[in-house]
């Protein structure tokens, strides 16, 4: 992947995309397709593709490309489209700041500390993993406690084994994928411990990564203590009560040399926060319009920076939209203003985007608070759709068509996911 030469970097771009992961790549394509002439992607790694590059398992692209790809293959497909669209990319580079005039401060060994002006900016920085420290697991602080994503990087990118006898806290998708990966690498995975009464990852990952490898999944159980001086030598785990408090009298010890934590992702929003972008306290990502524009004019956001997705396919779709919005903005075109505010109602944790229009089709992504089956998704009084089941680990996607909102003239629209019989009543 040839980096842009210093003399090739322009002083001004129509759209600058911060991050070259799946969100950033799709946004760049979207921007070009909506009329942006000069588009720049800034990526901090030496190759674009983001976290997909370390996701060497398959299962990507079923929705978007209608075939099953590995992470790097998915990234490559998108990267080719980006290159066809004549987009500039700087790698090994870091965006230090975006100011309200959309001046972007860059740092790179090749380009130095420099600035480019952007007609529109797309924030596509992705997410970071929650850590052991963030949830304050008591005990010692030995080597061998790491996030599942870091372990994935060690195994898949660098070829090193993070440990030989591994316990995993949290049943997020990365943890599940790593359970299988470490088994295949010859390590022993002694168990996956999940605080909640349900798995947090996709059902297919629970089946393919745990069940198929006889790895026990302990629900409503958490790690209550880490032991070991230099390196982990065991962890204490305990079941939790309904208020999620550990029942210490029933704790037991699990010998292991490694504890992977897979306890969720947090949108990476340092830049957005510094820029004064309004954030949603639930998703912790920016509040966005139907074109993925944030509260700052001409600043768009997409992908895990906005909310945590489970499938990259949706990231691509959402980001292409964000890039399109940025491209249109940079070209001086604005679509009709949003007139509907989506309000997460019963059993709905979050809705993205936060506002939509009544005159176009929109894809809305929901997360529910708790599992329900069968159930119904309701948009205020105007639309209802039956769902076979919902679980917090799987995002619900809803295409909102203009005809659903016929007779709705704007304002707050509550989104509820309720039991089927109640809905029928």
């Amino acid at each position, binding site marked *: 992947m040839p980096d842009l030469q210093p003399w090739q970097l322009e002083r001004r771009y129509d759209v600058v995309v911060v991050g070259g992961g799946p969100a950033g790549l799709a946004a760049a394509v979207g921007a070009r397709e909506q009329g942006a002439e000069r588009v720049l992607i800034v990526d901090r790694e030496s190759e674009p593709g983001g976290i997909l590059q370390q996701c060497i398992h398959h299962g990507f692209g079923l929705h978007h490309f209608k075939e099953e790809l590995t992470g790097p293959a998915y990234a490559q497909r998108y990267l080719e489209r980006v290159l066809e669209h004549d987009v500039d990319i700087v790698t090994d580079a870091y965006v230090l700041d975006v100011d309200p005039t959309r001046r972007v401060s860059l740092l790179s060994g090749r380009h130095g*500390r420099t600035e480019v002006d952007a007609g529109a900016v797309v924030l596509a920085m992705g997410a970071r993993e929650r850590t052991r420290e963030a949830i304050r697991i*008591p005990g010692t602080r030995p080597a061998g406690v790491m996030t599942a994503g870091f372990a994935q990087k060690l195994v898949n990118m660098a070829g*090193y084994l993070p440990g030989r006898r591994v316990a995993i806290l949290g049943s997020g998708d990365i943890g599940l994928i790593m359970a299988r990966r470490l088994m295949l690498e010859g*390590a022993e995975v002694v168990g996956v411990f999940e605080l909640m009464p349900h798995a947090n990852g996709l059902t297919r990952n629970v089946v393919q990564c745990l069940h198929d490898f006889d790895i026990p999944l302990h629900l409503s159980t958490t790690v*209550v203590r880490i032991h070991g*001086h*230099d390196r982990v030598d065991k962890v204490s785990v305990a079941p939790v009560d309904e208020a999620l408090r550990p029942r210490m009298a029933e704790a037991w010890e699990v010998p292991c040399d*490694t504890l992977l934590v897979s306890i969720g992702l947090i949108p990476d929003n340092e830049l957005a926060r510094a820029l004064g972008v309004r954030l949603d306290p639930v998703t912790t990502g920016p509040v966005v319009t139907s074109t993925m524009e944030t509260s700052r004019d001409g600043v768009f956001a997409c992908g895990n920076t906005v909310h945590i997705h489970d499938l990259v396919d949706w990231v691509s779709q959402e980001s292409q939209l964000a890039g399109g919005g940025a491209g249109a903005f940079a070209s001086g075109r604005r679509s009709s203003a949003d007139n509907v505010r989506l309000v997460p109602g019963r059993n709905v944790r979050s809705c993205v985007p936060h506002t939509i229009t009544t005159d176009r089709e929109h894809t809305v992504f929901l997360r529910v608070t708790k599992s329900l089956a069968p159930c119904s998704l309701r948009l205020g009084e105007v639309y209802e759709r039956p769902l076979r089941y919902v679980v917090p680990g799987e995002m619900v996607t809803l295409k909102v068509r203009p005809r659903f909102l016929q007779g709705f003239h704007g304002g707050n629209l509550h989104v509820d996911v309720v039991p089927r019989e109640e809905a029928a009543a």
Partner: protein
Amino acid sequence: MRFDVAIVGAGVVGCAIARELTRYRLHVALIDRECEVGLGTSKANSGIIHGGHRAHEGSYKGATEWRGNQLWDELAQDLPFGYSRIGDLTVAFDDGDIEHLHMLLDQGRRRGVSGLELWEPERLQREEPNLSHDVKQALHAPTSGVVNPYEACFALAENAVRNGLTLLLEHTVSAIERRDDGFTVTTDRGVLDARFVVNAAGVHGDAVARMVGAEEAGLRFRKGEEYLLDKRLVGFVTRVVFPCPSPTSKGILVIPTYDGTLMVGPTATWSEATDLTTSAEGARAVFEGAQRLAPGISEGDCIAEFAGVRAVAADEDFAIGTTRVPGFVNVIGIQSPGLTAAPAIALDVVELLQGEGLGLEHDDGFVPGIDAPIRFAQLDAEEQARVVRGDPRFGRIACRCEIVTEGEVLHAIERGARTMDGIKFRTRAGMGRCQGGFCAWRCMRLLAETLDVEVSDVTKRGGASWITLPRLEVEHA
């Protein structure tokens, strides 16, 4: 190898003594079991330079707190480490507390501590709007400050080495024998002779004293848990905030560290010497205590936690002095305000050694300073641009949470970092909210490449704390 002085223990006290001694024409050895200096009590504490008014009169602590406080300015001029006199506030919630404030005020004034002032709620809320509105009165001490204690240790040791110190890391002292003309110190990696021995062995202080038959201090161990909060809260509180001590607890503080991040703690519970565990009860106590002072602080903002152990002498005071073994000096039982007092203690120890017969001849070649490491994140845009033009390695970010460049990591390795913790405590790479998730691999690779070792040899902090493990041997039939 024969030394004039061997110092056992390279914490802040051992490092400060070592540096003082290198002002003279002496052969000095500083010995520590860990792979880097300052990794014991000195690393894991509140990092406070106490105002000078706090420690009780009539104690060694009281005698060195204010003297030590004043010496830090000069140290900070000579050496690069995070240090700032941000001031502290002791806050009173009731009449008993207010009495305590007046006691501290009188004690400080008698010692000559400058600038002490009582603040009424109105002033307090103007200066620190995020503190509890239940505070009735506060004592402001502008003399108080914060320091990054590990950086102080690195700088003191690096400067001492530059002035001729022999630094023996990963050397565990197992025996000290008194001979006619000095001591033989046995370590797991060889034997050395020294005319004088200084015992600055922290939690191992009694064990080292016992080796040679010197007085012990009846050391017990008090553990303190501390919790670091997200950068989001930078500026939330701008001075160190102390509650008044209660009969059962010295209280939980809110500490704006040198780097701006808030730290809350410490707990104070009796423990084993090596118990560095944090606990659910500790976290609860710390956040309850901190919320009493500043109600806006939340557990959800926690990004890291740690525990440190202080060696506590039977009489709770520092145990500093010559012993019944001529030439063997104890500097043990150094708990709070030991960090504050360290520069004063170092001067006292030099005097004690002189009293024991150590000749002191000034070394004209003594250089008080070392080059300050580049802190990219603290430079302005123009300086950053200039640094990157000079060395493109400063254009590559290693740690994104704290904006640490690869150039800084490489410099840290050149200056002695050997482990992931060594890099972290020198550069802040890995100290931020992602706790190394992003930078750990980059730092591992830079360590391996620069030191010409395998990635699999890289450790968190020496010993067997490897980051990766070799694959299991598989027996083939």
